[in-house]
């Protein structure tokens, strides 16, 4: 049978008449790289994967920046409040003793268990976090995305921005090329706690990043425990 040879002849650049070329174009178009909208439900599938996989050692934080950002979207108000409190210092923290359990714990800094990362990356995050701290910040979720973006940028900005998770970031920044500048601008916006005492930075900042989706504990931090509506009802 000749199908395999047929497919070979249809590779781009292969000899052939115009019809052959058109057919090759058509097949190439059918198999073209993914478009953003085709990956729109990636996050749902990732949630399902996380729930289905066996318990295991925590993955490095770098790998979970995107879902981290999404978790932040949900907890952003509480997190922002906590962050504001922690940055303002111990007195403020004491004053907000009514912060709900998990976050109160986080505020104490006891749960700082994130794996060590490069100082540069941590610095990036800290900078972005500083941008998210002020209570006047208009859209904390964008800052969460910026944190994720700046952390993921080492893997190539273009690739990172292909994730649907960053769509909002891209649209806020204007174009993909402007995202980095946009995030830097957010992080360095004047009036936002320009510099904090060095000793408070690591312990006070990390707690904000801790509500990870895979933590079973804190209620309200897991984006979507159920499968997407309407997809599995009959199974």
């Amino acid at each position, binding site marked *: *049978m*000749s*199908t*395999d040879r*047929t*497919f070979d002849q*249809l590779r781009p650049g292969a000899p052939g008449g*115009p*019809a*052959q070329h*058109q*057919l090759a*174009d*058509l*097949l*190439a*178009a*059918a*198999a*073209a*790289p*993914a*478009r*953003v909208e*085709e*990956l*729109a*439900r*990636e996050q*749902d*599938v*990732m949630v*399902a*994967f*996380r729930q*289905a*996989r*066996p318990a*295991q050692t925590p*993955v490095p934080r770098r*790998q*979970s920046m995107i879902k981290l950002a999404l978790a932040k979207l949900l907890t952003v108000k509480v997190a922002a409040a906590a962050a504001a409190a922690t940055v303002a210092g111990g007195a403020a923290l004491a004053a907000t003793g009514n912060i709900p359990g998990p976050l109160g714990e986080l505020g104490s800094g006891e749960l700082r268990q994130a794996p060590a990362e490069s100082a540069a990356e941590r610095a990036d995050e800290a900078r972005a976090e500083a941008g998210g701290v002020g209570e006047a910040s208009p859209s904390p979720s964008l800052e969460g995305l910026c944190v994720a973006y700046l952390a993921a940028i080492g893997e190539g900005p273009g690739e990172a921005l292909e994730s649907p998770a960053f769509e909002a970031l891209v649209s806020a920044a204007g174009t993909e090329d402007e995202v980095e500048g946009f995030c830097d601008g957010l992080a360095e916006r004047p009036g936002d706690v320009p510099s904090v005492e060095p000793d408070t930075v690591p312990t006070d900042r990390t707690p904000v990043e801790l509500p990870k989706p895979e933590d079973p504990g804190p209620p309200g931090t897991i984006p979507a425990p159920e*499968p*997407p509506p*309407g*997809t*599995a009802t*009959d*199974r």
Partner: protein
Amino acid sequence: MKTVTDALVHRARDGDEEAFRALYRAVHPGLLRYLRVLVGTGDAEDVASETWLQLVRDLSSFRGDDDAFRAWAATVGRNRAMDHLRRQQRRPVADAAVESLDELPGGDDTAAGALSAISTDAALALIATLPADQAEAVLLRVVMGLDARAAGRVLGKRAGAVRVAAHRGLRRLAEVLDTARAETGDAPATAAPTAADDTGREAGVTDSGTAALKEMR
């Protein structure tokens, strides 16, 4: 035991989230396009989600490499699509073609599709006008990237039968393209025939194929 420890599916099975994400991104677009032709664009996302839920659920018992996973995904996807069609009590393929033709993208879709002037949607719409066995053979080979043997296992056929079907499908596509090229300039009738049943399929191939090509230009 793990001779191919680099396989994404092995790492995913061990709980590596990023490996699974990479696997998803590699497999899902083709799967979704295959399903679009099977159940129509409107339902393909839902069927794909059902498929992934099952893949995720059964991943721990899956044995095989990334290629085998691809074939498994196609098999599960096809089964879910058939379930879906049974529930819907309707036939595959035809409405997908018309639907896709109606929503052919304009020039704003060029970013990812710079490969050629033919958009992915138009290409799928054209493939969807083929008889089902040919369309599936072409899609499994070209879009899902399966070899004839693996495609045969998905379809419950022998590899030779898949080769024949794919060959016929490609030949028919070439004819459609050729016809459309010869007719360049003719204004298409506004209505692409719906080709909603098997008897109308033969006419539908040429007509809606032509319409698709006109849209492509």
